[in-house]
């Protein structure tokens, strides 16, 4: 019989195991989400990240080795972003009639995201590198990393902050906006796309197709707007 330790060291260094583990962890997350009656606190991304993070830490597996397997899933983010054109196209008449509200929600949401995170972090003692890493936290990861680099932040820390922001937005958006009585799916979608990028957008699609389409717009346009706003607002701090 093969030495189980050798078997583990073989499996854990091959892409197959970590690709499988990623699908399995997400499946468990999705099952919990359904079993909990689609409770936003059982967000499948958060559950999967917690499970996989626990497995990596307890087995001492470096993130890079995990990513060698999981990159096949990660790669699909690009094509999926292209695919966002489909709900946008299907909702185009609604989008065209709401150009001004979209612009208002975008500018106010984007500026609030940058200003508030910098003000709070600074008041709690964050230094210049951390502030620069935080400024683009509401923007989709590839753009946020570029902005962070230009501002003198730490790109890989920004990537982690962006993902945490997305999860916070995805968990809180539905209960919070229900509580506050927002009924317009367009407003709800746009706001979460601006504040919580792709993870918020994925959440919006789970709730309502129109919300998802408006979230895609919010995410895409905030990527451009934050590239201009973040350096301006950061210079105030």
């Amino acid at each position, binding site marked *: 019989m093969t030495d189980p330790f050798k078997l583990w060291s073989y499996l854990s260094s091959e892409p197959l195991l970590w690709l499988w583990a990623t699908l399995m962890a997400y499946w468990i997350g999705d099952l919990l989400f359904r079993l909990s009656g689609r409770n936003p606190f059982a967000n499948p991304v958060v559950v999967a*990240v917690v499970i996989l*993070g626990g497995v990596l830490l307890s087995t001492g597996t470096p993130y890079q080795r995990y990513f060698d397997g*999981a990159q096949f899933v990660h790669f699909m983010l690009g094509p999926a972003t292209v695919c966002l054109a*489909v709900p946008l196209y299907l909702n185009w008449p609604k989008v065209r009639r*709401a150009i001004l509200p979209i612009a208002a929600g975008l500018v106010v949401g984007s500026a609030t995201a940058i200003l508030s995170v910098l003000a709070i972090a600074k008041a709690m003692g964050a230094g210049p590198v951390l502030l620069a890493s935080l400024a683009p936290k509401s923007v989709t990861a590839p753009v946020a990393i570029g902005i962070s680099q230009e501002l003198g932040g730490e790109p890989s820390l920004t990537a982690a902050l962006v993902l945490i922001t997305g999860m*916070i937005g995805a968990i809180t958006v539905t209960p919070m906006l229900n509580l506050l009585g927002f009924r317009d799916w367009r407003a709800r979608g746009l706001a979460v796309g601006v504040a919580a990028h792709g993870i918020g957008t994925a959440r919006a699609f789970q709730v309502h197709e129109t919300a998802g389409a408006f979230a895609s717009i919010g995410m895409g346009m905030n990527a451009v707007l934050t590239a201009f706003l973040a350096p301006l607002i950061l210079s105030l701090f």
Partner: protein
Amino acid sequence: MIPALTLILLFQLFGEVLSRALMLPLPGPVLGMLFLLVALSLSPGVRRIVTPVAQFILSHLSLLFVPAGVGIVAHLDELRAHGPALAVALIVSTLAAIVAGATAFVIVAKLTGSASDD
């Protein structure tokens, strides 16, 4: 499936090339999305081929964020070092941005008579 994936990757490829060639602040896939949007509005063929596959991929959008999300474990020490400040800043800021954005949208929608129809 194959024609749809070929088209989707082609638009992403166009986006990547344009983004790098012109050094635009937008990532390739976002430009690819804009190209696909134009193609969808011009061509019934593109609509027929791409729509079902795109909807399938988007129905599993959350899954695609998991590998990057697990990257948080590589930053646990830094995150812990600034724990309370980061937690408060990220939570308050994200909630504030959602409420502020949604409020601005609703106010301007009312002012301009742009009612939602569902």
